[in-house]
């Protein structure tokens, strides 16, 4: 297992380098002179030139990239153009909020998705199965930002059960987590259903039935355990879109997380902030994928991932 993790860590090094390269190139893609943009409107020629030298923008691109990488490794993601504060400081304030939102959303994705999937698979083609699958299909099709607004309208404005926006208490977490987790839950439900139906057809389940085991023992001990393997992969993949989805959900519910920070930074053209935010979110995603791969191996020892 230890060797496997080391091997996977080595494999993600080129991916991380690639991600830093893309994030670095964002700056190069900005039309016009980067130094002029960074200096802001109305800056004097001298200031622009000074900035160009300070940031090494007068050097060849490969040198700029190398110095960017060495800064990133040292935890220097540059300074915000808005308030000149280090980007990393801002990210360290925002990231825990986004991770908390992501955690509760993935919890909803897994719990709701599994329950719905099992209900469907236990009585295939029954009304409960069809009902769950229709809801799941709707869950995949509803834009999260619309679902968020609808939930906010019903539960915060009309019923006044939950707060409209913000991130101060447990009550604030409920609606954003449901909004963000719903789409994933729908996908997990569909995956659990098809995976369980496949497992239920296997010989060992028939044997278990023939032995006279109770239905719940068959479902939970035999079928679900084996059906979970592909579901774990789906949950892992969902984490990516979930992390991307925080951008929208944080904007709907006015949550000061990493996603909202990136969107605000794009609006104000605070490019170092965008670069830092995108880089950190992607690194989190890469490491979560590593975690999922490791869990996959723990759950399914038959598969040799090496």
């Amino acid at each position: 297992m230890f060797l496997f993790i080391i091997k996977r860590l080595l494999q993600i090094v080129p991916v991380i380098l690639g991600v830093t390269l893309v994030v670095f190139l964002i700056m190069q893609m900005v039309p016009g002179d980067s130094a002029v943009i960074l200096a802001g409107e109305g800056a004097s020629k001298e200031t622009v030139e000074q900035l160009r030298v300070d940031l090494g923008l007068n050097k060849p691109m490969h040198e700029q990239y190398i110095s960017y990488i060495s800064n990133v490794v040292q935890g220097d993601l540059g300074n915000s153009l808005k308030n000149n504060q280090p980007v990393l400081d801002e990210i360290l304030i925002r990231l825990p909020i986004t991770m908390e939102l992501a955690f509760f959303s993935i919890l909803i994705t897994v719990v709701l998705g599994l329950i719905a999937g099992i209900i469907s698979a236990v009585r295939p083609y029954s009304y409960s199965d069809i009902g769950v699958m229709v809801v799941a299909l709707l869950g995949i099709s509803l834009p999260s930002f619309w679902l968020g607004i609808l939930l906010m309208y019903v539960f915060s404005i009309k019923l006044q059960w939950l707060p409209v926006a913000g991130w101060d208490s447990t009550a604030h977490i409920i609606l954003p987590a449901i909004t963000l987790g719903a789409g994933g839950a729908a996908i997990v439900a569909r995956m659990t259903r098809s995976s369980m139906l496949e497992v239920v057809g296997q010989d060992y389940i028939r044997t278990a039935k023939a032995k006279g085991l109770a239905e719940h023992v068959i479902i939970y001990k035999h079928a679900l355990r084996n059906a979970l393997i592909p579901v774990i992969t789906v949950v892992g993949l969902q984490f990516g879109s979930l992390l991307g989805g925080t951008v929208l959900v944080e904007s709907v519910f006015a949550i000061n997380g990493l996603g909202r920070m990136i969107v605000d930074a794009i609006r104000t053209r605070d490019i170092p902030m965008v670069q830092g935010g995108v880089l950190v979110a992607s690194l989190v995603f890469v490491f979560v994928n590593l975690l999922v791969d490791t869990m996959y191996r723990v759950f399914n020892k038959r598969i040799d991932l090496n």
Partner: protein
Amino acid sequence: MTVNTSLVNTVDLVLARKKIRREKRRLFFSTLGQNKAAVVGGIIILFYISLTFLAPILAPYDPYAINLQDKLQFPSWTHWMGTDDKGRDILSRILYGSRLSLGVGFSSVFFGAFFGIILGLVAGYYGKWVDTIISRSLDVMLAFPGILLALAIISALGPSLINVTIAVGVFSIPLFARIVRGSTMEIKQLEYIDAIRTLGANDFTIIFRHIFPNILSPIIVQGSLRLATAILSAAGLSFLGLGAQPPSPEWGAMLSSGRDFLFSAPYMAIFPGLMISVLVLGFNLFGDGLRDALDPRMKK
């Protein structure tokens, strides 16, 4: 005599091929037709496409005409979906907005498919270092969670609907490329490709005339399902204010401005969202049905 026999054989072969193609087409449409969900999805998509053409005829008002006297009116017989904060008729705006949402969806998927197919064909056909470089680059693109790559691109290019199309398109490239790469690798090992190569065909002919037509099925299925994601992503980016700019009647942008009036005029946010959801549902239903009809191996 020999010439005549070979001519007859060729004619027979051509006729037989035509017959097979006809039979395949019949089978495809009958499988697709039997799938109720796919039929419903297809009808929804056709309905939306017809809206894009009929918008000028169906729209009761000018979608851009500001009429502050009639602002924030609830749905009524004069304004079926009500009016927005500037007194514009929401129904008319939604009808015209269908052109933008569908337009962005189709163009971005076309963009992603075009580059994804070329990259996938080249990686799958040539293999070795070419494949390694392309595949590793695709891995990097896939390492960006969700729409974050699209956001990064927009941050550089600036907010606009065209840039959203490019950004969502780029974000679709790796998905097409991966599918095409896998299918290409499978097909290039088949005997008929060896036979064509022995006959002297060059790589370009083999890739585009003999491999590409045989991997269309997974591409079409992916394209249809991808349209759903592309429309959602583009609407999401416009919702964030990074895509279509006011006064454009793009549905995501309309939803975004409706959010500010959730207390007094909730319908301003409800109708655009409903339009996006039903369209995405249509593509999801149709995509699932297409997958079952075109590629039984991919059937869930």
